[in-house]
């Protein structure tokens, strides 16, 4: 009986991983060999909509000045641009820096000081968005350093009335810091260069990532605005806006630098929050996505894949435990089933994700970096366990009726650090 149960678990895990593996291969091969969509590229001049740029900032004195400086140098028509740094209950000099910028650029920079209320980026965005006037909202995290033409690139797809959200590409700038940042760079590369671009090509469901992206203000208002009670406002917003028929456009050339965690504890906390937030969205939007009348069949399948993606890690852990249990339980299946599981994980699960990563690194022109690929197995194991912990944390929060708290990712850059966008 126990053995049959374990068998069933293993077959289920292997089937799910194999399905995701096939998806990884399809996306990667499409990215490598098919024609890439360039629908929103090369838009030099247009009747640009008015834009409000939000920069949520909680104790960001080290980085927010550089972000404001980069945005003020943007080539977006200044008369249609409003920059709103959101000073979210900061205890450092963030508010002071924002005020100094506002004093020097009174029309362009209009800070929003938040001194009370629920903490976290979604709540801060919710409050600030209610007062903003732009037709398009663009969000940058405070540690981002946008290039001169990035705003135009992010806003251009909104000339298409069907686009409700846009997403640019995030590139780590602290790649050289240590092994972790180099591995995270590869992971980001796979996620954007291959996964998001292929989904955009195939008219699947590219995802809005919460930063380096734009939101059509009308679409946001139609869905009721930002939600404060979520840890993953990006996934939440993606599925609410998709629910009303708008689409997400991914822009691989709209690149912007960010800082990735330089220590494992910070990385683990970030992953835990993502896991909780994404699975919150899973519980909220799986049903509505299956019934979404605006989805094509392909979009519906892809939406399910995207929503379930943070369940793959807990399933993998369950698979590992089941494999071990079967091995030690003995019996006639012991030789076959662990092998089957291993083949499923290696052939379609992990290896497919690594194949995607290798393709991304090659497309980015960092051929040497592909040598780091085997070490990503360590990152994969850490991720699997952390995401599982996040998932279990969310379940216990729901059972105990606890509010999941926003956990800010610490910055590693100091205000004195000189950061120049490489040319």
């Amino acid at each position: 009986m126990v053995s049959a149960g374990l068998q069933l678990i293993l077959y289920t895990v292997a089937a799910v991983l194999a399905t995701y593996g096939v998806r990884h291969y399809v996306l990667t091969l499409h990215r490598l060999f098919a024609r890439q969509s360039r629908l929103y590229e090369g838009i030099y001049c247009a009747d640009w909509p008015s834009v409000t740029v939000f920069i949520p900032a909680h104790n960001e004195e080290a980085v927010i000045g550089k972000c404001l400086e980069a945005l003020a140098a943007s080539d977006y028509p200044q008369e249609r641009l409003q920059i709103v740094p959101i000073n979210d209950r900061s205890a450092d000099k963030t508010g002071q820096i924002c005020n100094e910028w506002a004093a020097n650029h009174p029309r362009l920079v209009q800070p929003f000081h938040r001194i009370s209320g629920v903490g976290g980026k979604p709540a801060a965005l919710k409050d600030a968005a209610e007062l903003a006037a732009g037709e398009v909202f663009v969000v940058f995290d405070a540690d981002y350093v946008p290039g001169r033409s990035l705003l135009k690139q992010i806003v251009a797809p909104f000339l298409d009335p069907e686009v409700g959200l846009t997403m640019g590409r995030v590139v780590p700038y602290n790649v050289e810091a240590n092994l972790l940042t180099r591995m995270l760079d590869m992971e980001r590369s796979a996620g954007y260069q291959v996964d998001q671009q292929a989904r955009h090509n195939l008219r699947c469901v590219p995802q809005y990532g919460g930063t380096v992206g734009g939101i059509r203000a009308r679409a946001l208002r139609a869905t009721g605005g930002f939600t404060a009670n979520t840890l993953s406002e990006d996934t939440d917003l993606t599925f609410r806006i998709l629910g009303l028929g708008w689409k997400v456009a991914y822009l691989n050339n709209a690149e912007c630098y960010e800082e990735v965690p330089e220590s494992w504890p910070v990385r683990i906390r970030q992953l835990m929050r993502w896991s909780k937030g994404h699975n919150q969205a899973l519980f909220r939007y799986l049903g509505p996505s299956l019934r979404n009348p605006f989805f094509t069949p392909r979009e519906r399948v892809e939406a399910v894949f995207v929503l379930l993606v943070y369940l793959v890690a807990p399933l993998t852990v369950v698979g590992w435990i089941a494999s071990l249990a079967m091995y030690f339980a003995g019996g006639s299946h012991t030789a076959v089933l662990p092998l089957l599981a291993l083949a499923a994980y290696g052939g379609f699960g992990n290896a497919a994700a690594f194949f995607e990563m290798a393709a991304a690194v090659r497309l980015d022109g960092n051929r040497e970096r592909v040598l780091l690929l085997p070490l990503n197995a360590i990152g994969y194991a850490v991720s699997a366990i952390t995401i599982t912990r996040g998932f279990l944390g969310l379940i216990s929060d729901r059972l105990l009726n606890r509010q999941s708290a926003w956990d800010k990712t610490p910055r590693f850059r100091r205000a004195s650090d000189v950061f120049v966008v490489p040319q």
Partner: protein
Amino acid sequence: MNAEATLFIAAMFLWLGAPVLPALRQYKKAALAPLYVPAGNKLDASAGLSGAIAAISRGDFSTPVDGVSVSRSRRFDDTCPLRGKVACESDTSVSGTQNAFEVAWAPRFKLEADAVVHGALTASQRISVAPGARFRVLQAPKIFFEGPVGDLSARRPEDVATPGSPEGAVFLKAQGWWHATGDVLVREDLRVEGDIVASGSVFIRRGACVHGSIKARRTILVSEAASVHGSVTANRIELSQDVEISGCVLAEDAVVLGRGCRIGLAGAPTTISAERVQAHPGVEVRGGICAHAHGEALHV
């Protein structure tokens, strides 16, 4: 532990550990630069030329600025091709197939019939394109494809067009669009207010007018003397003779501009962007054209 188990563990160690060995070469490597992110993202072809243009306006033709060469030549062809980044002090004609430049700026450009240019041509006043010329990126307040201009007087005034609804679409109030799961038809001399989003194709008949942007997953076909006050986005866009579009024209695959079409307005320049752009004589574009793969001025 028996010999079989030891062998198994050793094999597993080799299988899993061997691929990690080359990674050690990268483990402590500190010279890994982040990805190259172009500061200007190449959106504005004239961005790199601003210093040179300022120098020309001062009458300084001798100082090289920002890697830009300043040219007094009035003509580039296969014997004297365009190279690199070039700022031309006067009106310039380009012909031949050997012009391997990145960006070129001049007050006015004329692309001759045999010209094949792969870089971005930016003019502060006007670009004229002769039938047969091939191009990639053109930017100017006025881009004119040489040939007879359409008979604009024959165009029906918009206020005569009858207000109405597009066929095959329903209006979604929250989204503010006309939405269709299949094709949409805007009948002759009809005026439609609002954006149109269709999963199929959109057909705009003769003399019809749409005040809003249009998105179609497949094709947008705009018939003679029709107009769109907004952007059009589709896989393929075909505009017949004397069509007016005030916004951007964006296609995944191709844009075909019929004789005498006018894209963009004098005070509100716009962009045509597609893999392939084909323009008949008499087409006038105010703003830019970006043909990712191939742009061509067609003969009559």
